[in-house]
């Protein structure tokens, strides 16, 4: 009897306990949600506009990573901190003081007094939602931009090479078939018709051909012509460094910096609009980005050393005009408004920088003959343009205002 009751009660209590734990769990999570969670969607917008410049959920940036912030600190601490961090530090709060000491180099966090309590809760909701996701290696959450790669000419070379091999194989096959047939015919010479006999007698007389004047003349012409062309080519290439692409002390890639990351040429080559030289950037310009990006890369060791010591990096000079010619970058880039690529080629696709243009006088002069002067909006050209238009109906080109004069560049 008792035993039965006992068993019933035991069952009942078990069921009750089960229910209790069930409800307690729900209650707790509901309570949890009430206390800390706001609207993560609103929080994301606020976070991106206010916090993202210094904070990331997963990694330390200017300020600490916010992952797990709600476990480390209560919301009652976070709200006054966000609104006025300096005040919390001044109040002697030990955690705030430690934070300030750990991130001394970043300075004290900016206060966001304009944010309401609910705003901060929304931000925390976003952080809480975000911390469960896996961190994005890209850093800023953007997708890696794709670069269009120009097709390599090696492919074409391979195709052409393949054609040549196939043609040679066909030639060999045809010739061997011919010789086999000829042998077969020779064996059955008796059955040949009279008019087909010449096939057996048809033997090329190499000796007569090679000793003929025509043949000798042709060979001599080809040999002399080729030697002459080689000699002329190498003579012309004297003083012309087109295609020169020396190895540099740092494997700097214009394809990466100017192509993929779209950094403007002017950002590093600061002299190009104000002076004769475009300039090679000093190491402090490199460090504007590399203080954060790839800051431990061994390839950048020379940049870091140069930045610390002030001893410049010795790059290998690629473009070098002889002293007898004067060239000014600002005249061509700022005044004439030429694109850098006009003379330097597709730099944004070059892994190693190379000299694209021949930089010969003929090349300079040719451009001066063809290019129309960019005279609009430039008072310097007003009178020249007026005079030019009096005598000619063609647009004013560089050659028309003395662009072919020797003393323009040689003085």
């Amino acid at each position, binding site marked *: 009897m008792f035993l039965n009751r006992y068993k019933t009660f035991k069952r009942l209590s078990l069921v009750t306990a089960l229910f209790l734990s069930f409800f307690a769990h729900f209650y707790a999570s509901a309570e949890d949600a009430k206390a800390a969670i706001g609207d993560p969607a609103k929080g994301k917008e606020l976070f*991106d*506009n*206010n*916090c*993202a*410049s*210094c904070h*990331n959920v997963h990694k330390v*940036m*200017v300020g600490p990573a916010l992952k797990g912030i709600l476990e480390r600190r209560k919301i009652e601490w976070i709200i006054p901190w966000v609104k006025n961090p300096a005040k919390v530090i001044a109040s002697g709060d030990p955690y705030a003081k430690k934070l300030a000491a750990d991130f001394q180099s*970043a300075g004290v966090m*900016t206060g966001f007094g304009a944010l309401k309590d609910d705003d901060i809760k929304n931000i925390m909701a976003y952080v809480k939602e975000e911390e469960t996701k896996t961190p994005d290696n*890209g*850093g*800023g959450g*953007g997708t890696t*931009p794709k670069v269009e790669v120009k097709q390599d000419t090696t492919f074409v070379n391979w195709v052409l090479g393949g054609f040549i091999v196939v043609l040679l194989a066909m030639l060999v096959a045809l010739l061997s078939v011919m010789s086999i047939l000829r042998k077969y015919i020779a064996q059955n010479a008796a059955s040949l018709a009279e008019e087909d006999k010449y096939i057996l007698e048809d033997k090329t007389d190499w000796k007569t051909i090679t000793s003929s004047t025509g043949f000798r003349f042709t060979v001599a012409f080809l*040999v002399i012509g*080729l*030697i002459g062309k*080689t000699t002329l080519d190498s003579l012309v*290439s*004297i*003083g*012309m*460094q087109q*295609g*020169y*692409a*020396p*190895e540099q002390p740092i494997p700097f890639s214009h394809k990466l910096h100017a192509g*993929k*990351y*779209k*950094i*403007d040429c*002017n*950002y590093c080559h*600061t002299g190009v609009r*104000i002076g004769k*030289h475009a300039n*090679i950037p000093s190491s*402090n*310009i490199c*460090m*504007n*980005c590399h*203080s*954060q*990006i790839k800051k431990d890369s061994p390839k950048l060791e020379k940049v870091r050393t140069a930045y610390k010591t*002030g*001893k*410049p990096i*010795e790059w290998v*000079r690629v473009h*070098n005009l*002889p*002293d007898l010619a004067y060239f000014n970058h600002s005249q061509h880039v700022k005044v004439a408004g030429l694109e850098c690529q006009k003379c330097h080629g597709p730099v944004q696709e070059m892994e*190693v920088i*190379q000299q694209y243009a021949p930089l010969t006088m003929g090349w300079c002069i040719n451009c001066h003959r063809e290019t129309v002067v960019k005279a609009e909006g430039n008072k310097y050209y007003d009178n020249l343009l007026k005079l030019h238009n009096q005598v000619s109906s063609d647009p004013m080109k560089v050659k028309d205002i003395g662009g072919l004069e020797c003393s323009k560049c040689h003085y």
Partner: protein
Amino acid sequence: MKIVKYTLLSISFIGLVSCTKSVEDPGTEYAPAMYHSRAYEPLTQVTEEGNDYYNSNPNNPYKMNMRALPKNTIKISHFNANYYKNPEADLFFYKISKDSTGASVIATNPIPKSEAVIAEGKELYGRYCQHCHGETGKGDGEVGKVFGGVPNYAGAAKDRSESSIFYTITYGRNRMGAHGSQINVLDRWKIVHYVQTLQNQ
């Protein structure tokens, strides 16, 4: 025998004709003394003494041919610029130092705001700022995405004053490096005008 002779000859002939220059070789220089200036020139430096083309300045650090300006040098053209009406504004740039915090320095933009100046500022912004700060100042430039910590002008940096923007360009702020060596004073103020339009977009 004859065949061997002709084969060897033609092989050496082909070899001679098909020679090309390596990319590492600048080629023969005509009048090399014209390519390697012995006078001091920027961007070239031959430091070994005894070299025919030695052109380094032994009085400069690391025998460099270029030198930074002495500290506190004032560019003469800054006085003559039309934008600068009063000497106080003229010297503003030289009065702030890296140690002055951005907020404590107060100056007004000496360049009057106009459509043309904002257009110029936009062009300069494209050259010097856009790859990090993005086309519309959201901090979403190609470099900015990798760099991290780039603020949204219209968000966290909305209330930043013009003098603070100028200071930031000149000396940097938090993760951003100093850009004073790349952009001249007047151009910086033009960029400030454009950044302000992005703040209020």
